[in-house]
């Protein structure tokens, strides 16, 4: 019995210790952001690496989800004679929820793992130690530009995701099913609020950008400098990022859309 209590206590302490360590890392990262802003060319280069390379998967996924969403919503709305609301339902689903959340999950899988592996391999190859011994702080030279690039890239990718998703929905709804195009677009213009719906979606994706990039960088920076360590760290990046995004999405949705 005592052994069980001891084990629970030890695990709890270890979890809190890890959480504290991650919190210190995050604060340290924030402290180096102003330095990265002063060397914005490094941020742009990382935005290219992180954002541009995620374009294909984001676009393909956005179109596919938009098409499926339009089809599913059409089947669900027709029995109630509400098929004219299709454009609105698809739009709100994408800009409020699916755009930010699915983009973040894809980002964690594509760019997050790439970041973790890159930083982990830099550590394993002593590149970070070399930088340290050259009196160059890797946190300001390597981590902070990537952190900022991730935060800036995520909303852009989420907007793109929602935009191509809506186009995919239009393709299915208007071109294949025959929903009235004027109805499809006009209800969006009438009922979608730029600040409440689109704006909150962008804020969400920026928050997810902070979470996904910080988790990826932390896992890479703290990884064991071995091939197994890097492989394990990339897996943890996807798991921790995804769970954190889903939990934070619930909190943000409850806060942003609590009033009808």
């Amino acid at each position, binding site marked *: 019995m005592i052994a069980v209590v001891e084990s629970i206590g030890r695990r709890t302490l270890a979890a809190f210790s890890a959480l504290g360590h991650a919190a210190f890392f995050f604060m340290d990262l924030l402290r180096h952001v102003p330095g990265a802003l002063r060397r914005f060319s490094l941020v742009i280069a990382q935005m290219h690496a992180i954002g541009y390379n995620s374009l294909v998967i984001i676009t393909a996924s956005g179109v596919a989800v938009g098409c499926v969403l339009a089809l599913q919503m059409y089947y669900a709305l027709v029995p109630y004679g509400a098929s004219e609301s299709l454009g609105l339902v698809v739009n709100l689903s994408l800009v409020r929820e699916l755009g930010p959340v699915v983009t973040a999950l894809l980002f964690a899988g594509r760019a997050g793992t790439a970041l973790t592996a890159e930083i982990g*391999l*830099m550590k394993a*190859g*002593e*590149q970070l*130690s*070399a930088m*340290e*011994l*050259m*009196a*160059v702080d890797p946190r300001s*030279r390597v981590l902070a530009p990537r952190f900022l690039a991730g935060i800036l890239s995520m909303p852009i990718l989420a907007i793109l995701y929602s935009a191509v998703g809506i186009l995919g929905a239009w393709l299915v709804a208007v071109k294949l099913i025959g929903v009235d195009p004027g109805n499809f677009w006009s209800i969006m213009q009438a009922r979608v609020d730029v600040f409440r719906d689109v704006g909150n979606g962008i804020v969400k994706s920026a928050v997810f950008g902070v979470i996904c990039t910080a988790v990826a960088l932390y896992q890479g920076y703290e990884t064991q400098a071995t091939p197994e360590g890097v492989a394990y760290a990339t897996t943890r990046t996807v798991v921790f990022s995804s769970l954190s995004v889903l939990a934070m999405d619930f909190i943000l949705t409850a806060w942003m859309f609590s009033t009808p």
Partner: protein
Amino acid sequence: MNSETFIDIDHVTFGYDASRTILRDVSMRFARGKVTAILGGSGCGKTTLLRLIGGVYRPQQGKVTFDGELVDPRNRERLYAIRRRLGMLFQFGALFTDLSVFDNVAFPLREHMALSESMIRDIVLMKLQAVGLRGAAQLRISEVSGGMARRIALARAIALDPEVIMYDEPFAGLDPISMGVTANLIRRLNDATGATSLVVSHDVKECFEIADYAYLMAAGGRVVAGGRPEELADSDDPEVRQFIRGEPDGPVRFHYPAMPIAQALGVPQ
């Protein structure tokens, strides 16, 4: 402290955790402008020693001084000022794989000096010329061999004309030609720049050819002997003799401690 001493390791004890001591009461002095070799088998704490000098770790006991100044990782500003006077060649180069050969050598210049790109170009080409790789300036790191990577890393280490250059296993994994080239470069660079050079290695022959002074370390992070290469070569100390001559058995046992073989195999005594 002797006025000729540039780096002083004074009764340093260090371990990565409380249960495992890597260096035990180590004292060494590195003379200004000389090439000093630190020899020893794998795992005896040679690389850790370089990292203590670079302020990556803090000794548990004792102190490290650099040109009379205490190396203290807690004082980041002073530590970085010391590191700007240091150049280090890592065992496998530690080149930045996302940059070209040219950009690797230019990296410390761009980070620390407010120089125009044309001036950086001139300096980088001169450093690459010194290691014989000016023609490889535009190659990617993935396109260079291990020996070339070591020389590029050397060009990067000397980009800021450091007062101290630390070499971590510069000969490991090199073919005989690359090994000779690297050894020759270390000596020539030291003589040309007047830098203080620390060479950590287990290659006795190469080190003895270029070093002015050598320390021998042994398992457990002890300093076994120190002296000029010829003095160590003539030493009667069994531990020194075993290492210098590469004898398989001696004070350093061939067999890892274990129960007698007969007992392990269950053979009746």
